[in-house]
């Protein structure tokens, strides 16, 4: 039977601030437990929240980057439930008056080509603490360093039609948020988390089926896997004529299975009401306009600029803009006068490999530009240049010319030297010389290769061929 999958995502991202959402504690990751805490984030009697201006700015930047309308008035609300990681017994969030509403994100769907997903809302809230279950027998340990860290929750419309599409949307969303400077979006450090709602219906039906919520999705790959597992489970139920119940599920990455969750999700009565400790968040038109002005160039815009202004292929532009630092690096190299396509090849090849390995650029854009110009001038072969690059990446001191010199890789086009190597090669390969002279001219490549080898790559291949041709006459 045919089914249509309907998916909406709720994405929590940590906003890139120094301090927490409602207190002046550090947000740093990996500190000893319960060291970044104060009366506010411990939920002590008498403590009061005061919102972080930077979190509001970054939340607004994220919202604008996602095409949302930032509301002039939004309201912090208390979401009430008990959990040991929630110090106050309520989470300060936003409910019926969120920071921003009504955005959209365009991306390439693996099945449907270019599609748009609606962004229902973006709101600000505080994170809970961390629970550790495996450290003390029979106990759960509570670390409140994370409690109060600022989050933006980004809720999409149920516009996604497959698990793979959900993943592609997430990739695009992540890129936009990083470009906007709103979040680092690191799943490892917990600064991006995903909950998914998924339901199944007949194609063409407008009503949504009963949805399940899948939580604990700790990588984009797992989002896709978990949604596939849940889609298959729901389709199986419906195929057997059974009904899908509204449930909350946890994904177990090890088993690839989803499992029903109990505890707090049992009673979904959060008793939201406006937080009386916090007056409304009022943002005027000028402030919002200022945030819009301050937005950096977003991935879409940058991609098309690189394509149109620099004339590099669409594929190259997509790879290069996938990471902000990579695109910045590429543009710096081009700014040195390097041919964009040559720069793109380098950036997508050796540079990207180094970046993935080290997270940085040990060979500065200046030096890469210098290296490329040595190739262009015929001073280095492409092969030699790759060796110089590797050397510079390994020990980042020295200009490319000096490194090439040190490695003895500077290309030789001096006639005397070339003739010497050619003579040696011809003398060492009399049989091939005879065959060439008998008309087997495709052996020219063999001779050039031998000369390159004998010269340890230093011979200028463009100079070698005329000398060989002359000698083999």
């Amino acid at each position, binding site marked *: 039977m045919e089914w249509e999958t309907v998916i909406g995502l709720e994405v929590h991202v940590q906003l890139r601030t120094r301090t927490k959402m409602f207190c002046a504690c550090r947000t740093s990751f990996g500190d000893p437990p319960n060291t970044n805490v104060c009366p506010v984030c411990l939920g002590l009697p008498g403590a009061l929240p005061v919102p972080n201006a930077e979190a509001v700015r970054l939340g607004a930047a994220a919202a604008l980057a996602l095409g949302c309308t930032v509301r002039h008035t939004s309201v912090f609300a208390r979401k009430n439930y008990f959990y040991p990681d929630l110090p106050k017994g309520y989470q300060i969030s936003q409910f019926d008056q969120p920071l921003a509403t009504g955005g959209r994100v365009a991306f390439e769907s693996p099945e449907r080509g270019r599609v748009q997903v609606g962004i229902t809302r973006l709101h600000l809230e505080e994170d809970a603490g961390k629970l550790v279950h495996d450290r003390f027998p029979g106990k759960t340990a509570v670390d409140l360093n994370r409690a109060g860290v600022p989050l933006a929750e980004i809720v999409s419309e149920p516009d996604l039609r497959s698990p793979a599409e959900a993943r592609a949307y997430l990739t695009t969303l992540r890129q936009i948020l990083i470009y906007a400077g709103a979040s680092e979006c690191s799943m490892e450090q917990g600064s991006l988390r995903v909950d998914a709602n998924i339901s199944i219906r007949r194609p063409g039906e407008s009503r949504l089926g009963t949805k399940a919520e899948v939580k604990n999705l700790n990588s984009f790959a797992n989002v896709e896997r978990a949604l596939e597992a849940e889609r298959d489970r729901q389709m199986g139920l419906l195929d057997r004529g059974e009904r899908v119940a509204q449930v909350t599920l946890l994904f177990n990455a090890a088993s690839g299975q989803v499992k029903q969750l109990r505890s707090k999700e049992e*009673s979904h009565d959060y008793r939201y009401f406006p937080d009386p400790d916090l007056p409304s968040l009022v943002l005027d038109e000028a402030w919002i306009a200022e945030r819009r002005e301050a937005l950096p160039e977003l991935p879409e815009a940058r991609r098309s600029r690189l394509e149109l202004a620099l004339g590099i292929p669409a594929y190259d532009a997509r790879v290069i803009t996938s990471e902000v630092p990579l695109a910045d690096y590429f543009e710096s190299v081009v700014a040195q006068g390097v041919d964009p396509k040559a720069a793109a090849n380098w950036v997508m090849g050796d540079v990207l490999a180094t970046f993935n390995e080290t997270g940085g650029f040990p060979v500065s854009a200046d030096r890469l530009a210098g290296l490329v110009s040595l190739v262009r001038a015929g001073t280095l072969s492409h092969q030699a240049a790759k060796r110089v690059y590797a050397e510079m990446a390994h020990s980042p001191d020295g200009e490319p010319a000096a490194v090439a010199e040190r490695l003895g890789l500077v290309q030789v086009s001096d006639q005397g030297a070339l003739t010497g190597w050619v003579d040696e090669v011809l003398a060492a390969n009399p049989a091939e010389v005879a065959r060439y002279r008998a008309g087997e001219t495709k052996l020219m490549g063999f001779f050039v290769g031998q000369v390159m080898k004998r010269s340890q790559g230093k011979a200028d291949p463009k100079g070698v061929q005329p000398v060989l041709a002359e000698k083999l006459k």
Partner: protein
Amino acid sequence: MSIGRDEVLHVARLAELAVRDGELDRLVEQLNRIVDYVAQLDRVPAAARMAEPFVPGPRSVALREDVVDPVPLARPPAALAPEFADGFFLVPRHGAMEDS
């Protein structure tokens, strides 16, 4: 409107309050008395009620700049906690939380 025993127990569960033995009937009676009393707000005609809620104090929230400056603790979490070890607050193991 009247609140039944089940409803009182449900609300007590939401509020994580143990209801003591023999206390329930009296609680049901008292809560009904209070809820009946506050229900007199129904006498204010809906048309007269203000659309905008009234909130005293500043009209808009004053924000704090993003500077690390927490109010210092005169005594550490360990000195406050009923159960604490190696920097952590401890609670009984919660089965349903083990996967998260």
